[in-house]
């Protein structure tokens, strides 16, 4: 599985899955998902939870996980796949999940793990009652596909006749559920033709990505606590309390990530333009320095190569090309270039060096982290090496997506990424449990 390529795809390709009436499921990147799942089912599923993955891509991951057989997988992997699927059914817009479940019907996916997830979505989703009221026919289709039409209708008939716990219901339906006592009423609602016309289904029950408050006006000091504190230090504020706070903020930010047991070489652009001027003075450099500080705690070894001046005295021209060569000389697992993108000496050199690396036998990945003032900077004149993987960041909250993206580019980052995503799955699982007590995975 080419993790960086797949992750970039998951974060950018947001076309919907569609089910044309009477046609086949339209799934334009099915081969990519199928191949990634075959290669590493657990890693693939976890990647669907990475911060920043688009909702329709998460729907595809859910579809692939539920469509594929689990034959030959060990119990631990099956558990991760199940938990991931459960989190996705709660974290996606219900309409996306319904599309996935109807797609599985078209694909005739009849695995037990598919049945379990589908039934729990239809009958145990925190918004199940509202969903049934709004999407009853679709959910009936999902329910009947999960159990088989005859069995589903047999269950519904028995429930209509007052059966709630017979052996028949237990073996065919209730054993798949975590809250079987709630199922009969919802199945009656599913087959009650008198309901319908309710409001559209509610949004996701579980927030997979942290909602971010975007300030109406971006300033030098509303880009996260680390950068704000650094700006005051750069401006020459009272240093003791600021340094103390800085340590706390960096510790807290770094604690969100597992330890990376490799070496990152950071080429830090400390040229005059990184300092900026006017109301934006220090804004970009402070964000870059914040990243350096967090990485210094996350990485077992961080080599910093400053170009131009230094972090406290940014000055002079940007020589990214020589910086990258110096960084490669430290023998890292990954080179990360952090820059505002203005390459002064000479423009195009970094691109040529990047183009030469494979030919020169250098396989160490090099990524470019664009230090931005806001998320919408005009980068037309700020792309020093278009062939390098690049990602922008302007706020401390961006680190949650930036670090998995960065470290996912190197082999040493694979276990780190898996550990980070497992921790994320654990956290999402806990939050999912809190949505409905007793609705444990």
């Amino acid at each position, binding site marked *: 599985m080419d993790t960086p390529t797949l992750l970039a795809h998951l974060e950018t390709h947001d076309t919907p899955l569609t089910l044309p009436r009477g046609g086949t499921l339209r799934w334009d990147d099915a081969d990519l998902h199928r191949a990634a799942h075959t290669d590493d089912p657990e890693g693939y599923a976890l990647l669907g939870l990475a911060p920043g993955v688009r909702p329709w891509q998460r729907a595809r991951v859910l579809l692939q996980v539920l469509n594929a057989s689990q034959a030959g997988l060990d119990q631990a992997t099956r558990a991760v796949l199940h938990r991931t699927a459960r989190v996705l059914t709660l974290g996606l817009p219900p309409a996306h999940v319904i599309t996935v479940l109807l797609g599985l019907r078209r694909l005739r996916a009849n695995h037990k793990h598919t049945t379990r997830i589908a039934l729990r979505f239809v009958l145990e989703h925190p918004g199940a009652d509202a969903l049934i009221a709004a999407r009853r026919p679709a959910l009936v289709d999902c329910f009947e596909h999960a159990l088989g039409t005859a069995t589903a209708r047999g269950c519904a008939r028995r429930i209509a006749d007052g059966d709630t716990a017979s052996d028949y219901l237990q073996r065919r339906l209730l054993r798949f559920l975590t809250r079987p006592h709630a199922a009969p009423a919802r199945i009656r609602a599913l087959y009650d033709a008198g309901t319908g016309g309710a409001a559209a289904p509610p949004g996701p029950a579980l927030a997979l990505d942290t909602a971010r408050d975007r300030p109406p006006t971006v300033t030098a000091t509303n880009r996260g606590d680390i950068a704000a504190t650094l700006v005051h230090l750069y401006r020459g504020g009272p240093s003791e309390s600021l340094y103390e706070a800085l340590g706390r903020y960096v510790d807290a930010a770094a604690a969100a990530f597992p330890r990376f047991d490799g070496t990152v070489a950071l080429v830090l652009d400390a*040229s*005059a*333009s990184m300092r900026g*001027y006017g109301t934006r003075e220090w804004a970009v450099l402070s964000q870059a320095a914040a990243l350096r500080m967090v990485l210094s705690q996350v990485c077992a070894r961080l080599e910093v190569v400053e170009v*131009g*001046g230094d972090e406290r005295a940014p*000055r*002079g*021209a*940007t020589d990214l*090309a*020589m910086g990258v*060569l110096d960084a*490669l*000389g430290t023998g890292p697992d990954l080179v990360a270039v952090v820059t*505002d993108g*203005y390459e*002064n*000496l*000479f*423009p*195009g*050199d970094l*691109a*040529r*060096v*990047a*183009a*030469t*690396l494979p*030919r*020169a*036998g*250098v396989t160490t990945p090099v990524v470019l982290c664009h230090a931005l003032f806001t998320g919408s900077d*005009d980068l037309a*004149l700020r792309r020093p*090496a*278009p*062939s390098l993987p690049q990602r922008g960041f302007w706020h401390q909250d961006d680190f949650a997506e930036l670090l998995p993206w960065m470290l996912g580019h190197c082999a040493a980052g694979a276990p780190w990424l898996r550990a980070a995503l497992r921790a994320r799955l654990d956290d999402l699982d806990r939050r999912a449990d809190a949505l409905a007590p007793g609705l444990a995975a």
Partner: protein
Amino acid sequence: MTALDTLVPGPLSLAGHRLGTPQQAGALTMVPISGPAHPGFVPPRTGLKLSRVVGYGQVELTNGAPSGVAIVPLHIGYIQDHAQNHALCRSAFLAAGQTLRFDDACCVQESQGGYLTGGDQWFFVLPAELRARALELRGVHGYSKLWADIAELNARYGLPRRGHLEQILSRQRPVLTQFQSRLELQPGQVGALFFLAGRFAGLEIAPDPAYFAEMWAALVCFAYGAAAWHAEPEPPPAVPYDAAGLAGLRGALDRDRSGRIAEIAGWLADAPAGPVDVQEEDRYLDLRLSTVTGPHLAGQIVTGGDRTVYASLFAR
């Protein structure tokens, strides 16, 4: 610095000035110049203030500093919303606290009324293409005297043929102001050589680094950046070096850079040179402000004894 001496023979002694490593941004190449700092000069942004526009074509500047003489940068201009933007045709000296009225200023915004006021100012330096004509018009009264040349330049840039410099400067300000980051000011830098598409375009020298730093944006973004942006080349393809291993790649990069620096030195050596006419215009104690005119370049310089304190010279 031999090449600089041949570029401007005679009065412009640049002894002690040194050329640094060139930087490039598209069509614009800048060679930083470091050199001796001359104390006692008021920088143009923090010390020199536009006090008012008396009438169209009449601009008053004040040296608001408590001490030190201000050298008014050649072809400086001011822009404000809802006011007729103005630029000066010449440099001048202003003693501390002195206010000077320039009656030979140009309006650079044909159909905008209103006078510039003392607040909310940002300044520019006239685009390189207009500087020779503006220098010729020093001492000529007539607020509209540069409109035809501005209109012609606008037309060359594919803009409406009007005497509005704002079509070039203000409307493209976000992209032009990027030149101050695309080219980075060096510590201790007091001047720069500018080349446009491989041809000598200008030589700028300031009394000290603080003065030059305050001129940086006006020079790189507007005086030379506007022309460079209109000549912006496509980024060159990233052709790999023929190199094996990291050391080989470093060597290839070094050799390539040496070649390009030598090429830029060749541009300077190839710059037209020859005798120039030097006409004194103003004096302040032992400082002399002179206009330099030759077939290949023009501009104004300030000398103090045998020292060059200020120069703003551009290719004709």
